[in-house]
């Protein structure tokens, strides 16, 4: 569905992404992990066409992404932002309706059908009950769900998430990830999620891409990627990798220096 062919990208002098090639199949749940500065966010920005690679090409269903116009991309690929600062407080429903933008062209007002789509998106994400509340009165977890609803209102095929669980407590992390998993399983949406939390990525993603300084260090199932040697090599710290006692997926624990 999405194919990256030897992508190179740099902001200034140094390459941030170096010869990146991989494919994402329809309906996959892919996690991108790697230390700070390894290029996770940059990769997501390139996937949403926010940045253009200097070399290489991204194909979306065989079509080069750079040939597609912005609103066509927005109909296929939705992004759930990290944390957005809203200058003036819009209501939750207004934010979700913004997701209809790529479908509206030059229309100034949403149609009745758009409202219905927004309502369904809010029902799915359980945000309907505060649809009339301004965003600045909602909690971090509620705001995140509103942005998922906005992404759903775009009726995309792919959803990109950048550090979706940072600054959420464990309860909300779990709620949020279950929601994403549902979207993936029940609606067949393709998910690409960049995460700092290796355990979460290992638990929820089918496939992981481990980045090291803009290159793919390992790619494969969590059991293939989350291995002590890989993690210690890429992150440069001591870890202990065993199995989650219930799900049997790989799990990492941090080790203090010299404890081993």
């Amino acid at each position, binding site marked *: 569905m999405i194919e990256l062919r030897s992508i190179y990208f740099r902001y200034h002098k140094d390459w941030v992404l170096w010869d990146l090639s991989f494919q994402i199949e329809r309906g996959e749940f892919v996690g991108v992990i790697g230390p700070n500065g390894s290029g996770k966010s940059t990769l997501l920005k390139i996937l949403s066409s926010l940045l253009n690679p200097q070399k290489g090409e991204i194909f979306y269903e065989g079509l080069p992404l750079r040939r597609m116009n912005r609103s066509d991309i927005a109909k296929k690929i939705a992004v759930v932002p990290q944390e957005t600062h809203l200058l003036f407080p*819009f209501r939750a429903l*207004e934010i979700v309706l913004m997701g209809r*933008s790529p479908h509206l062209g*030059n229309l100034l007002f949403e149609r009745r059908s758009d409202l219905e789509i927004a309502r369904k998106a809010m029902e799915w994400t359980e945000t309907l009950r505060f649809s*009339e509340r*301004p965003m600045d009165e909602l909690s971090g977890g509620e705001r995140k769900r509103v942005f998922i609803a906005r992404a759903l209102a775009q009726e995309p095929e792919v959803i990109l998430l950048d550090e979706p669980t940072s600054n959420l407590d464990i309860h909300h992390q779990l709620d949020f990830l279950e929601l994403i998993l549902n979207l993936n399983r029940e609606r067949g949406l393709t998910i690409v999620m960049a995460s700092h939390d290796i355990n979460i990525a290992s638990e929820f993603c089918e496939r992981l891409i481990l980045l090291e300084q803009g290159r793919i260090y390992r790619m494969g199932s969590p059991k293939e990627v989350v291995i002590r040697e890989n993690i210690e090599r890429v992150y440069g710290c001591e870890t202990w990798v065993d199995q989650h006692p219930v799900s049997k997926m790989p799990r990492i624990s941090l080790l203090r220096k010299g404890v081993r």
Partner: protein
Amino acid sequence: MKMLTFRKVLTVSLILTFVLLLVTLASVMVGSVRVRPGRSLSILIHSVFGLGGEETEMERTIILSLRFPRAMLAGLVGAGLSVSGAILQALLRNPLADPYILGVSSGAAIGAIVAIMVGLGALSFGLPIASFLGALMTVLVVFYFGRQDGKIHPNTLLLAGVIIGSFLSALIMFFLSISQKEELHTIIFWLMGDFSFSNTRAILIILPYILLGVFLLYCQSRKLNLILSGEESALQLGVNVGRLRLISYLLASLITAASVSVCGLIGFVGLIIPHSVRLVFGPDHRLLIPACALVGASFLIASDTFARTILSPVELPVGVITAAFGGPFFVYLLRTRKVIKTL
């Protein structure tokens, strides 16, 4: 679930238009010669249909050639400055932005002062044209220095605007210190904003800029909402942010330049009207732009009416009134913000 519809925008606009008409009527009534409300209305209506009524020739002249053009000019400028302020606050993502923040005001002032000092001020067209050119040139210079790798970044642009603005302010001070006494009075009145030069031709000069500018901005209003939710977000929702920004900056600057050129620097309107309207009607530009235009127009007409009547026969610069009334009113709105929201 309530969604903003065209119907709601239309309803609000009609109500605010009605308020604007009432304010205008009140404004043409009062002054050194009072004209009764019914009489004022009939003069205005008769003039539209080209009829003569029972009113005296003096009343007709006062209303049709003096007060009505002045009210119209104040209305246009109030609408222009308010819309321009609202747009710049969104584009620069800065609630402190006003129409003058990109240096338009200082540029216009330099143009006007030079015109006054070389004696062009006596010509009916000299002053507006000179200040319009000054404003436009400043906008272009600010844009030139505000770019970074060919793109416009709000903060760079803001800095460029502020710095070029303060450089020009120094020039203004210099010109003030070397100007003659009689010129000084004209310049200072201009700097504080003044409608006493208004005439029908001034209206015709700025009408196309303001009407067309506001209309074109309105066509972008839904996309401007997306910019408020963040530049990256807007791009990912399919908006061509670069082009939208450039067009909107230029339109807002053009509207400001046109407004400033006919009446000088009227402060405060472009800052408080957008905020006040936002507090009452919310931040959606599809409602905000028409509401700002109509409320801004009413506010400036009312302020100008006070300016020319409060110490009659002495006329105050309208900028004094906008600040004196607008400031406390704005503080009141801020304090009662919660109340307004639940209405």
